[in-house]
C-alpha cells in the first residue's frame, strides 16, 4: 500500500512543533515516528538569512519525487516533507521531515534518506547573506558523501 505523502513548499513560516503535532496525531498509531527539523544556523552572527530561490512547479516536483522515492524504498505508512523557500532568517526552521512506520528502522531510514536527498537534490538555489555580504552556496562535499550511502 502506498504511503500517505504530504509534501509542501512554504513561502511563509514553518512551525516544527505544529507540524510534528499534526503528523503525530494523524500517523502516530503506525507505531514509530521519526522526525527531522533543520534550522538556519546563525554561525555566531556570520549568517543573517538564507534566500532560497525556487522555480514554481519544478521545485515542488523535486520534493515530491524525493518523497515518493523514500516511500517506495522503505516500508512506511506516511511521510511529510515541508520545505521553506524564499527568505529564511537565522534561527528559523528551513525543513521538516517526518516518517511513520510499524517498524522503527524503516522510519529512521526513510527520514534519513529523504533528508540526504533534499540536502543535495532539491531544486533550490541557496544564497547566504551575512557579515561577508551575499553569495550563492554550492552543494557541499559532505552532502554528496551522505547521499552516496544510499546507492
Amino acid at each position, binding site marked *: 500500500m502506498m504511503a500517505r505523502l504530504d509534501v509542501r513548499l512554504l513561502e511563509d513560516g514553518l512551525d516544527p512543533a505544529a507540524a510534528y503535532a499534526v503528523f503525530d496525531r494523524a500517523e502516530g498509531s503506525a507505531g514509530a515516528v521519526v522526525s527531522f527539523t*533543520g534550522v538556519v544556523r546563525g554561525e555566531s552572527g556570520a549568517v543573517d538569512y538564507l534566500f*532560497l*530561490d*525556487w*522555480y514554481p*512547479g*519544478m521545485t515542488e*516536483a*523535486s520534493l515530491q519525487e524525493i518523497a515518493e522515492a523514500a516511500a517506495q524504498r522503505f516500508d512506511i505508512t506516511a511521510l511529510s516533507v515541508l*520545505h521553506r523557500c524564499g527568505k529564511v532568517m537565522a534561527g528559523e526552521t*528551513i*525543513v521538516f521531515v517526518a516518517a511513520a512506520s510499524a517498524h522503527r528502522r524503516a522510519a529512521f531510514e526513510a527520514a534519513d534518506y529523504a533528508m540526504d536527498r*533534499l*540536502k*543535495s*537534490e*532539491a*531544486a*533550490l*538555489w*541557496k*544564497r547566504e547573506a551575512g557579515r561577508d555580504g551575499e553569495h*550563492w*552556496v*554550492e*552543494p557541499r562535499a559532505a*552532502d554528496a558523501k551522505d547521499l552516496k550511502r544510499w546507492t
Partner: protein
Amino acid sequence: MIEVLFFGKMADVAGRRSLTIGVPDGGTLHVLRDRIFADALAQGQVTAQDIRMSVNKVVATSDRRIDDGDEVAFFSIFSGG
C-alpha cells in the same frame, strides 16, 4: 515566442529573472544558451557547464529542441535545501 526564466546564480549573471524571445535558428537549447550568455561566456564569468537548463520544467541537455510556446529555464546547479 518562448518564455525564458533564470534562477540562482544565472539570474545574477543574466541580470534578469525572465525574458520573452523568438525561437532562434536551429531551435536547440545550446543555441539559445550561447546567445543569451554570450558576453558572460566570452568573459569567463561562467562556463557552459555551469549553465543548467530545463524545458517545460523538466531538466534537459543542451541538444534539446525547443518549440514555440515552450518555457525554458537557465539556472546554476541545485544547491539543495
